[in-house]
């Protein structure tokens, strides 16, 4: 391209470029933490990456809805939780379809864990699958991720009392299914 034409191209404001770069950098920095969260929520590393990718796309398109820049971490967590809950609901439907069409879930056991650990994780995973999506998300955020009740409530966009109810039912159901 000739130099004159290049100079005539519209140049976006520098501040917008800087802001976009900062947001991209922030997302890249937060990504491992978000993937770990998503992995515990959806119980699968590949699907967790998809969930985080979708959440990042949501973040870029909805950045203007972020009120407090200091709380961007909690906001991103909320987006990941929403995406993961949506993914869990759709996977629940696909599980029913898969059962109807006799397609068994694919097993990929890790080689570096004992049989007891594997069995315990499998039991916990199966029991978590049987919980409702909200119970599962609340339990995972509270006991696998270690968030406080307020943080769980903020991530799920519900109040603290509702989180307690979901947790109470989740613990009872997990005990009934032999996972606790």
């Amino acid at each position, binding site marked *: 391209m000739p130099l004159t034409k290049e100079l005539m191209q519209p140049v976006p404001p520098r501040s917008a470029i800087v802001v976009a770069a900062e947001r991209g950098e922030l997302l890249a920095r937060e990504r491992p933490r978000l993937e770990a969260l998503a992995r515990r929520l959806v119980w699968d590393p590949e699907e967790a990456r998809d969930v985080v990718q979708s959440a990042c796309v949501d973040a870029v398109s909805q950045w203007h809805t972020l009120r407090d820049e200091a709380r961007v971490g909690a906001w991103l967590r909320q987006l990941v939780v929403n995406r993961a809950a949506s993914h869990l609901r759709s996977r629940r439907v696909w599980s029913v379809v898969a059962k109807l069409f006799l397609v068994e879930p694919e097993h990929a056991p890790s080689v570096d864990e004992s049989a007891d650990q594997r069995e315990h994780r499998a039991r916990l*995973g199966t029991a978590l699958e049987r919980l409702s999506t909200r119970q599962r998300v609340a339990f995972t955020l509270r006991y696998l991720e270690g968030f406080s009740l307020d943080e769980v409530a903020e991530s799920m966009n519900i109040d603290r009392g509702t989180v307690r109810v979901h947790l109470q039912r989740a613990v*009872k159901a997990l005990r009934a299914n032999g996972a606790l």
Partner: protein
Amino acid sequence: MGCDDIQQCLLDETLPRFEGLTEHVSACPRCLPFSQSLSEARQLRGLVPAPGRRVPVAKTKRRLQLTAAMALIAAGIGTQVSLGHDWLTRRHHASPQVQAQAHENRAIPVVASDEDDAQAWSALRELTRETSAETRRNPRVDDPATQPFGALSSWVAPHATSPLRSLNLGAANTRIMLTSED
């Protein structure tokens, strides 16, 4: 304070606690297992789930598509068979009037040259007019005696006699027999 409230207290440390909570939990058959489960749940922190137990969506979709295609083919074949059966049944149970009219439309140009046939057809049309008000559309199915049998009435009914059969219509009789109920 009931067991549900106590379990909520165990879940949320910020809720106000009443005296004797610990004693209740250690003695209550509902709260004690809940408390033990909660302790186990608190030890799960940091657990990384193992990969696996993944529903193969692509495989499920492929199988769903195959089944849907087979269901569509089966539905198409079923519709064709049903329509064919319906058409055959309608043709079989068509009223003598309709059959005669249809036959008239087809056969008149052929028999017009034959004087006997022309007379026979004339007599047939006259007879059809006279009996149209008294002839049932479907004598077997409409017969009250065979109505309870529904679609099977044509099997259980005695052989039907039509006023058209009793006529000696000469050459035209052959054509009438071909298009009549039997």
